[in-house]
């Protein structure tokens, strides 16, 4: 494997590792659900980035298709996990607003610009 390909792999793979670590940091130190979701998605993006970097074989050689297939399924699973987490969040908000009636504006009926 040539020098040039190795440098590209290390550069982008290192960036992917940094995304992952930044995501972990944000995930454990920030409280709100939307911040945790952005952190989780950036963690995932970091993992995908490392896999794509590993699959790279230079500009004139075909890349390794196996990590690409893994990443493709990973992207879809990540977005479905995000949607599930949001559904959980909405349910939790609803439970909270039912228990403490003085909290206003978190009622699910108000989601969407309801007329």
């Amino acid at each position, binding site marked *: 494997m040539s020098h040039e390909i190795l440098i590209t792999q290390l*550069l982008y793979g290192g*960036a992917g590792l940094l995304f992952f670590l930044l995501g972990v940091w944000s995930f454990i130190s920030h409280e*709100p659900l939307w911040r945790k979701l*952005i952190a989780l998605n950036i963690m995932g*993006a970091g993992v995908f980035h490392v896999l794509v970097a590993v699959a*790279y074989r230079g*500009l004139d050689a075909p890349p390794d298709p196996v990590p690409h297939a893994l990443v493709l399924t990973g*992207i879809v699973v990540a*977005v479905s996990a995000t949607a599930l987490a949001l559904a959980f969040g909405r349910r939790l908000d609803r439970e909270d607003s039912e228990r403490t009636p003085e909290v206003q504006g978190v009622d699910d009926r108000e989601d969407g610009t309801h007329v």
Partner: protein
Amino acid sequence: MNPLLLGFDILLSTTLLGLALAALTSREPRRGVILFIAFGLLLALVWARLRAPDLALAEAAIGAGLAGALMLSAARRAARRRQ
């Protein structure tokens, strides 16, 4: 080693890193989510450069588009709750 290509790689990586940091440290929900969408789109560009056009398509449509739309609605609820 092509210095132009290396410069382009470094530019892309630092921009991505900056966008990720900005998205993760933003306190305002809508701003954070929009930065995340920008991060996803740039990530798709980087994957196209790394010869993964299949993934670039999927990331632009799913990772940036659909996840962004999902999280924008969550961000709006969060913003409404903070008021």
